[in-house]
């Protein structure tokens, strides 16, 4: 099984390396071949919203940069991990720049999903695991309100991409953010992905 980790954890100089190592270790312990892309170092331009991947060159992004390879690695993986410092309850900008380019993964035909209007999926996409790096634990060690917002966001991305299995977990410098939660979440997503 393959896990692709799109990581912006390097944007947190203090805790990012340890957080990424924790995620990679847990995935390897569960039998995954782990492929990690440091999105902050990747050559990825922001999406210009040109729309060509819709009807001009259906399914193909015309921007020739590292996203071409990232698309191939996404559709070949069993689990896609989006790992990021949580900024204002969201992905940090370096990871969002990559996510903004996901449009070619969807077809320019609309569907009603969850009672909402969305693009139809183009690929059978991997299970989705969001890993948020938060600085301080909130009530109950959960990571607080921003973590709750990030969890909601990962669920929303799953609906957008028509991904059946998605979950979020949190790591941080605060010991109250139990690594057990990360273990449980990786276990759950591994079960679902298999």
């Amino acid at each position: 099984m393959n896990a692709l980790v799109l990581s912006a954890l390097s944007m947190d100089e203090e805790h990012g390396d340890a957080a990424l190592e924790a995620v990679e270790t847990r995935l390897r312990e569960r039998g995954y071949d782990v492929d990690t892309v440091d999105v902050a170092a990747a050559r990825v331009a922001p999406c210009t919203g040109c729309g060509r991947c819709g009807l001009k060159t259906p399914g193909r992004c015309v921007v020739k940069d590292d996203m071409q390879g990232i698309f191939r690695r996404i559709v070949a993986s069993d689990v896609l991990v989006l790992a990021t410092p949580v900024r204002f309850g969201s992905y940090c900008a370096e990871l969002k720049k990559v996510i903004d380019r996901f449009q070619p993964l969807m077809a320019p035909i609309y569907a009603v999903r969850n009672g909402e209007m969305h693009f139809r999926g183009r690929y059978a996409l991997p299970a989705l695991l969001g890993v948020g790096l938060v600085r301080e634990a909130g009530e109950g060690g959960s990571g607080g309100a921003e973590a709750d917002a990030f969890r909601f966001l990962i669920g929303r991305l799953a609906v957008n991409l028509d991904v059946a299995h998605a979950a979020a977990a949190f790591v941080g410098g605060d010991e109250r953010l139990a690594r057990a939660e990360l273990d449980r979440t990786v276990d759950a997503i591994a079960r679902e992905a298999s």
Partner: protein
Amino acid sequence: MNVLVIDGSRRAKSNTGVISRDLAARLAAAGLTVDLWRVPKWDAAPTELDVALAKLAACDAVVLVAPVYLDELPAVTQRLLESLHERRAELNGHAPLFYSVAHSGFPEPIQRRAELASMRFFAEQMGWPWQGGVGFGGTSPIDGRPLEEAGMFSRQLRKCLPSVVADVAAGRPFSPDTMARCDKSPFPVPLRLVVWVVNAGTRKTVRTESLELEDRVYGGQAPGGG
């Protein structure tokens, strides 16, 4: 009252630009001094942030208008907020009122909820008074046209922006009524009919131009294993 309206999109002919310009004009007509400024490019020089900080230091209120990309702010706008947060000490405690406007092509309010929450977290972490956020759905058909030329597709915006302006001009938070009235579907028909009509137009283009919409150019499998 000095208001800084931030156009949170770098897309050419963007609907965000249309809404920002319309809102700025309405605020000016209401007697406010308005500065309209566009979010910098991803690779903009650091001096662009100096410009932003100077504008923020000179304003009493900020209205951030942004599109929704996959439920959240575009990366360039997220980056601006992160950069401002890193340099917030340079504002020496100046705390403008912060309002936000999120819009997207999808009609359901839930598709804008995460972005509006992020703007609230930003305001709180900047120490700026959060004045609320409003959402608008179904904006794609505006297609870069001035609101008055976009007919029924801009009706919801034209109907609700006066309430937005009234709240900003009074320096009060968006009222629950303003927030509830803005984010309603502009389509007066059931969602499945909207989807059918839009897809019919797309399929006509596909037939005319002999396109293969389902191509999977990056490999992989079709949804459902087909």
